[in-house]
């Protein structure tokens, strides 16, 4: 018990902030210490902590044919509320094929298996293409009897804004609480050029655990000009570009075409040794014209399959991959859902499915025209046909087709057109991992009322120190009250920490181990003479963010008379900050003849953006990251100590572009 209390003290003094306590179900989750193993890459490791504190890590490299390949993709939430450390999401993500047939039947290209996105087709990044950091990529050949190589900045790694991530407004009378958060994502991208078409592989892994997989096509439309390969098509198969009439009765119609892109998504939901695929379908169970009653049915798919819209799926069908052996703190199985709202090329069987699931197998690398000696030339249709084992190690082949009908506006350089799908956590977390403390108790039944029944332990009446005598002396027993706390949602457990001149009181316990003075009772000791005693109470409950409050001080006479408090003044020096980066401000607390101690808090409006403990009149405070460029008006608030009065200082923090 004492050891537990001591550890709580350590937490409280280290952060002086809200501490989330773990109750039984969450402790269960936290025990699943996930991915303690380092990834099996070194120089190709990408690990990034985003502005909200969430992190992603993975191996990222360029394959000669597949281009950008991400492996061992793992996510760590911004808090330990869900779990500690990283959890695996995907084992691998790569582009399995890009088939481009032209509508006039003239020609088709397999840009991955016939040309490749890596090797010489990889385009070096520049300051114009990559606003983040670049990763070097080596490409090596034998040529004319020599081994030759180049190393180019081939992968771009950046943190990008994703816009307003959440917004929730509470209005009661003239009171208002707004929760608004700007999101960000780790963006990993590469560029490839195959003749006139140029592509960006663009993966965004956001701060709430969602993955957006994009293939952008730019460059130029299939050209006309001297050759006019793809102009002069029968108007049925294209669209007129430009205002001129071509000589010789030729049309200026550019050929429409498909981009049949199929991604290979090898799931690794929480590193499961087995994973299941569920298909969900929806049907109206009401008799028209009664209000439709849409019933959902989920079925575990026991065998490999292709989902072909119109036959085995429709536009409301969706799929998820779950790990039956992993549950979130609510007890729901962890899964990722595939959100794919693209077109698919119904006229060629291999590109007709919107998605195909088959078991992972070492030889199954590409969606069609497979290039592994173990199953050469095969396609997703063969993988399904040959899978006899139950589907429990699924790879999803996600078809994000796009029928490109050229527009006048597509002329050179063509604006990027995107084919995207998303991998969305579904019950991977009990709540969105970036859920703010103020909303963290909204999980299942409950109500939203941050004004009058906040989630966070909130002190209403300060704790007090009571004693039997008016003037404490050595040996006087002191007792702390908890004060009064919000109890609309829950009741709290309280921990007490006694302070001497603002610092935790410690003493040598059994075996010489240093212990903190905890518990509601404390007896005045010799060391307390001539000091100010106070008590800090921390209120906590499983599933709720803790809060703490400090009593007023009690002067213990002796040795010398209590010094009158002297006034303090604050000096704040704040360098320019970069958007999205955490800045540090220096605060000096000047008090004539005293060395100030206590706490300085930095606030923007009512929101705490930084906090630090004053030592010898100085404190260096690391602020949260500001995303918005401009001048931010902040306040530094010094709470004072037994010998120094509190004070405030307004200052401006200038945030500049990164």
């Amino acid at each position, binding site marked *: 018990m004492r050891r537990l209390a001591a550890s709580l003290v350590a937490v409280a003094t280290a952060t002086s902030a809200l501490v989330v306590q773990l109750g039984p179900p969450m402790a269960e989750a936290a025990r699943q210490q996930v991915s303690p193993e380092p990834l*099996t890459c070194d120089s190709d490791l990408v690990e990034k902590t985003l502005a909200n504190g969430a992190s992603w890590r993975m191996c990222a490299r360029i394959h000669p*044919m597949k281009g950008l390949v991400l492996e*061992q993709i793992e996510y760590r939430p911004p808090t330990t509320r869900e779990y500690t450390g990283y959890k695996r999401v995907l084992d691998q993500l790569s582009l399995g094929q890009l088939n481009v047939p032209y509508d006039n039947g003239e020609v088709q290209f397999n840009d991955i298996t016939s040309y490749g996105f890596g*090797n010489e087709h990889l385009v070096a990044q520049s300051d114009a293409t990559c606003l983040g950091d670049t990763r070097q990529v080596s490409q*090596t050949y034998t040529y004319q009897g020599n081994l*030759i190589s*180049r190393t180019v900045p081939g992968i771009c790694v950046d943190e990008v804004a994703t816009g307003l991530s959440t917004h929730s407004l509470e209005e009661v009378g003239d009171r208002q609480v707004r929760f608004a958060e700007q999101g960000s994502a780790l963006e990993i991208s590469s560029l490839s050029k195959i003749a006139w078409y140029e592509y960006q592989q663009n993966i965004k892994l956001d701060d709430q655990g969602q993955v957006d997989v994009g293939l952008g096509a730019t460059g130029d439309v299939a050209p006309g000009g001297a050759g006019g390969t793809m102009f002069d098509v029968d108007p049925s198969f294209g669209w007129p570009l430009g205002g001129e009439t071509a000589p010789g009765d030729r049309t200026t119609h550019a050929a429409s075409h498909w981009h049949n892109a199929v991604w290979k998504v090898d799931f690794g939901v929480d590193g499961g040794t087995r994973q299941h695929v569920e298909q969900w379908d929806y049907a109206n169970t009401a008799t028209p014209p009664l209000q439709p009653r849409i019933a959902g049915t989920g079925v575990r798919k026991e065998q490999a399959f292709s989902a072909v819209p119109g036959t085995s799926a429709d536009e409301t069908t969706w799929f998820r991959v779950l790990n039956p052996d992993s549950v979130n703190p609510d007890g729901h199985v962890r899964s990722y859902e595939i959100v794919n709202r693209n077109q698919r090329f119904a006229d060629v069987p291999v590109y007709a499915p919107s998605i195909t699931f088959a078991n992972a197998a070492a030889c199954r690398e590409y969606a069609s025209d497979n290039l592994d000696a173990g199953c050469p030339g095969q396609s997703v249709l063969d993988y399904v046909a040959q899978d006899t084992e139950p589907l429990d190690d699924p790879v999803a082949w996600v078809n994000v087709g796009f029928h490109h009908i050229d527009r006048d506006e597509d002329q050179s350089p063509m604006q990027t057109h995107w084919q995207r799908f998303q991998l969305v956590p579904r019950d991977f977390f009990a709540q969105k991992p970036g859920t703010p403390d103020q909303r963290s108790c909204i999980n299942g039944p409950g109500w939203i009322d941050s004004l009058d029944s906040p989630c966070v332990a909130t002190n209403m009446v300060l704790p007090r120190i009571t004693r039997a005598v008016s003037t404490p002396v050595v040996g006087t027993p002191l007792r702390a009250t908890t004060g009064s706390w919000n109890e609309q949602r829950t009741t709290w457990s309280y921990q007490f920490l006694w302070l001497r001149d603002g610092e935790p009181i410690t003493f040598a316990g059994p075996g010489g181990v240093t212990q903190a003075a905890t518990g509601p009772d404390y007896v005045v000791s010799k060391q307390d003479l001539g000091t100010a005693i106070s008590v800090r109470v921390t209120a906590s409950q499983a599933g709720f963010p803790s809060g703490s409050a400090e009593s007023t001080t009690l002067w213990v006479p002796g040795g010398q008379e209590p010094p009158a408090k002297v006034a303090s003044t604050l000096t704040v020096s704040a360098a320019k900050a970069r958007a999205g980066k955490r800045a540090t401000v220096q605060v000096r607390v000047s008090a004539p003849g005293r060395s100030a101690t206590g706490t300085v808090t930095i606030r923007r409006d009512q929101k705490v953006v930084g906090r630090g403990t004053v030592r010898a009149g100085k404190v260096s405070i690391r602020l949260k990251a500001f995303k918005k460029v401009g001048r931010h008006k902040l306040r530094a608030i010094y709470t004072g100590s037994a010998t120094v009065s509190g004070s405030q200082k307004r200052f401006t923090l200038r945030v500049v572009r990164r």
Partner: protein
Amino acid sequence: MEASRVRGWATGRRIGLLAGGAVVAGLLVAVQQWHQQPADGAHDEGRPDAYRVVGDGDLPTSRPPLGAPRDALSPEEVGYAIHLATSDTSIPTSTRDVLGKAGPEVLLVGLPDEETAGRRIAVVSLYDYAADRGYQQRVDLASGAVTSRHARGLQATISPTEAEVAIQIAIDQSAGLRFATEFEAAQGAPLVAPEQVHFVAGTFRFDGSTLAGDACGRQRCAQLLLQLPSGAYLNTSDFVVNLSTRDVVRINAGAAR
């Protein structure tokens, strides 16, 4: 022949809009610069993405420092993997590359798709023109052990040398092909040498969607994309080049499209 081609590509380099043709142009420019520079592999200053010769240009025959299992292969690891893969006893002495020389054509080197339990493995894709057979050599770079698999129809990407052979064959047998007519109409002179165009080559496997070319896949074929120095592309959809037989194959000839 090689020297003149190098000059031709140097011209292309000055244009600065190599676009798709840069496939081989990059290599040739690099080789030209290699000839102009000390053989110590000094880094090219001219073009940031230029190729340089690794070491003395020979394949490393001793094990270089190895990276982590899932890091991309270093140039030295690629060279060592090619050395082990091509010198392995699984490759018959009858093997020929695209130029007809002894030894297989080296197509590409990469990591195996699946994780490898901590071992540093490279997969080397090769092609034997004598038997029209694709090889995939899994090379354990630490032990030097090679696991060989082969199959027909294994058609990894076209190598730089194969691309050069393909364009030469296309030019030599261009009579009646659209690109030759288009080139002459645009340039006022016939296309007689590869350096007059930029080119990109990809593999072509017959899938039943063309009127001819059914040998492609069992044999090794290349699809070409040709571009004039002006940037205009030429129509190459009517043929592919069968590198195994060294023939132009008219895949859409006579089709009413």
